[in-house]
């Protein structure tokens, strides 16, 4: 067991714990932050596997953009919080399906690749990756750029308000708990009117004027 294996086990445990927390957390924001931890851990796994460029891409795209996008998505949709509201009734079925699949797949993997080891792992350098992108994979690369453009336009069209009126949300999205916020219009204006000449704190300013 080399040092690389030890590092991989540590990063892998962090990643797995983050993934489990992502799908079991009762709090939506905690789930999104656990997802960010998981994605960062996967970037660490890429580093251990000597894929430096992919690790950086993972950090920039996933941890930087997608996790923030998910946080925005959670904050813009006011969803109820709690295990009963977040999880459906078929949690046992989900556990059975995923656990059975894990057992089958891991058995197959151990049987097929259980004895494959490399002593010194090498990854391709950034020059090899660049030449491969623009020599071999040019057409998929350009297609991916077109796909991203189409997704950008599609997302804007989908998320836009229907007929362009400003600011009015639908009636059903209102939150119905509590009272309307208290109107505190008498606090700050009195303060402003009181200290026309001095920036002292409120107590000492009032004493000086009295």
């Amino acid at each position, binding site marked *: 067991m080399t040092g*690389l*294996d030890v590092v*991989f086990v540590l990063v*892998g445990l962090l*990643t797995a714990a983050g*993934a*489990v927390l*992502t*799908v079991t957390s009762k709090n*939506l924001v905690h*789930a*999104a932050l656990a*997802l960010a931890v*998981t994605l960062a851990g*996967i970037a660490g*796994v*890429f580093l251990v*596997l000597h*894929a430096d*460029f*992919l690790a950086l*891409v*993972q950090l920039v795209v*996933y941890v930087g953009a*997608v996790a923030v*996008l*998910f946080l*925005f*998505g959670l904050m813009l*949709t006011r*969803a109820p919080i709690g295990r009963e*509201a977040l*999880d*459906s009734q*078929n949690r046992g*079925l989900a556990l059975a*399906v*995923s656990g059975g*699949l*894990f057992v089958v*797949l891991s058995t197959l993997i151990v049987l097929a690749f259980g004895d*494959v080891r*490399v002593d010194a792992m*090498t990854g*391709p350098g950034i020059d*090899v990756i660049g030449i491969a992108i623009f020599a*071999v*994979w040019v057409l998929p690369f350009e297609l*991916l750029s077109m*796909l*991203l453009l189409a*997704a950008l336009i*599609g*997302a*804007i069209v*989908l*998320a836009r308000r229907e007929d362009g009126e400003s600011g009015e*949300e*639908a009636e059903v*999205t209102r939150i119905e708990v509590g009272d309307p916020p208290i109107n505190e219009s008498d606090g700050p204006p009195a303060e402003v009117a009181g200290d026309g000449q001095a920036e002292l704190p409120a107590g000492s300013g009032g004493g000086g004027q009295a």
Partner: protein
Amino acid sequence: MSLIGPLLLATFLFCVGIYGIIARRNAVLVLMSVELMLNAVNINLVAFQNVLFPGEEAVSGLMFALFIIGVAAAEVGVGLAIVFNMFRNRATVNVDDVDLMRW
């Protein structure tokens, strides 16, 4: 370094993603589980590339992983737009309540 560690981690992440897709009701959390599964596949691709085919000319595994990252970014954008639209029209992000196209 052995190949089996990354493969087992990827399998675990994939199964956790499946659990999340089936067990969660919030549409945003379902999208997050889909992201977990896509990342598990990326780990597999990179591990096979760098362990089994280290000196390949066209670095196919890394290229597929890069393309998956790009497509996943597009998928998150469109998916969240659809979720926002659903929330605006029906005031819910619960995937059990969206059964208009159910057979």
